């Protein structure tokens, strides 16, 4: 396990005041905020910054870290001596257990995954009842999976405390059935599959956030399914019934006469299924056949000659007298 220099992570000196640490943290939190940052690896950097702040902004953890880390260089192999925490008392302020779950092995080894809230003093752990923390993970699905449901194998790294009190990370694999009807951003709960509770209290939950892989045809917005539907000019002009292929079979859609490119049509209840199924939203795109044969050119020339149509007229949908064939 590598030693982490939290002072270096926050860019402050070892004798920085609490105010200086707070300022440095805020500056970096803004820079690497995963919702807005354009920096590469913003999420990973934010995690490092959060971890450093969780230790340095907590006076108890900072004292322990300073004492234990004296003489270590960043990246140097690190192993805390047995019972190193004797004489320290952690009150559990700062980051919540859920937030510390993704911190490094180095943090886990020093402070455990409870973010200091495990309530021990002088190396003697106090027995208490506490529900296990929730674990969070992301699960990547295809949009088709939302129609049929899916089973995914998920590997999770979970902290375990060994007989000597050291925290190590163990990997466990779960087979999880994702129900039909899920949408991107939705959180799927697996009750009791989080961290075990203490003192007989129940385990936490496993919370899986659904994400969809990009799809070449579909885009899902909540349960609504968006699709660009190409139609031929005569289908758009004269009206037609066209078949739209969906993950679970097709649906026939009537294109009204005079439909223009860019028009959106809604087919109720044909989006992602569920108690309240989403809608299918079709963005109509009129596609011109190429004029790459003599016959095709002749047809276009006939239209140009015989139809008085100016697409640049104010009312683009109406035919006007100003255009007379080709320019």
């Amino acid at each position, binding site marked *: 396990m590598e030693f982490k220099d939290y002072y270096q992570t926050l860019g402050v000196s070892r004798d920085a005041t609490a105010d200086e640490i707070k300022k440095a943290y805020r500056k970096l939190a803004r820079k690497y905020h995963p919702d807005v940052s354009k920096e590469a690896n913003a999420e990973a950097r934010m995690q490092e910054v959060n971890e450093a702040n969780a230790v340095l902004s907590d006076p108890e953890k900072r004292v322990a870290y300073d004492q234990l880390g004296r003489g270590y260089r960043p990246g140097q192999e690190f192993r805390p001596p047995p019972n190193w925490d004797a004489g320290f008392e952690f009150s559990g302020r700062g980051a919540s257990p859920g937030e510390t779950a993704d911190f490094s092995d180095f943090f886990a080894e020093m402070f455990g995954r409870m973010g200091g809230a495990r309530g021990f003093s002088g190396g003697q752990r106090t027995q208490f009842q506490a529900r296990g923390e*929730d674990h969070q993970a992301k699960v990547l699905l295809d949009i088709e999976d939302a129609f049929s449901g899916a089973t995914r194998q998920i590997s999770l790294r979970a902290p375990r405390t060994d007989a000597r009190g050291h925290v190590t990370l163990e990997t466990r694999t779960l087979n999880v059935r994702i129900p039909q009807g899920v949408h991107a951003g939705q959180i799927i709960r697996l009750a009791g599959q989080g961290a075990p509770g203490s003192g007989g209290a129940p385990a936490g939950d496993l919370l899986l956030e659904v994400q969809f892989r990009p799809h070449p045809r579909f885009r899902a917005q909540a349960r609504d399914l968006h699709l660009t539907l190409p139609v031929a000019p005569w289908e758009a002009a004269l009206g037609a019934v066209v078949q739209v292929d969906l993950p679970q079979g097709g649906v026939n859609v009537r294109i009204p006469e005079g439909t223009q490119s860019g028009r959106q049509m809604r087919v109720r209840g044909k989006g992602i299924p569920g108690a309240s199924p989403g809608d299918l939203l079709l963005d109509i795109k009129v596609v011109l056949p190429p004029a790459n044969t003599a016959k095709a050119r002749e047809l276009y020339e006939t239209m140009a000659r015989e139809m008085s149509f100016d697409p640049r007229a104010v009312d683009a949908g109406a035919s006007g007298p100003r255009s007379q064939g080709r320019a």
Partner: protein
Amino acid sequence: MRDDEILTGSPMEDSWVTLEQLAAACTVEPAWLQRHIDDGLIPQAESVAGVWCFSSTSIVRARRMRQLERDFDAVPELAALVADLLEELDELRERVGSTDQR
């Protein structure tokens, strides 16, 4: 649990849980969550007979607001305003992403 056992998950929207369980899912303290619901800063929270149902969006919103309040000492109303903007940003990014894809 056997290796071949298949666990079935349920969407948060279909899960009725205690305030404590909900707070754990949002990685916030129960008192914080109750206060923000009472103040109307987290919409789409439904409670019946002491159990709660939250949308996934509300869970993400609560996590974001807690982080903003903690990281920047933001007052709850400001954190809620930023959360509103981030939710709008999510939607716009999704639209842009799908346009780029075409």
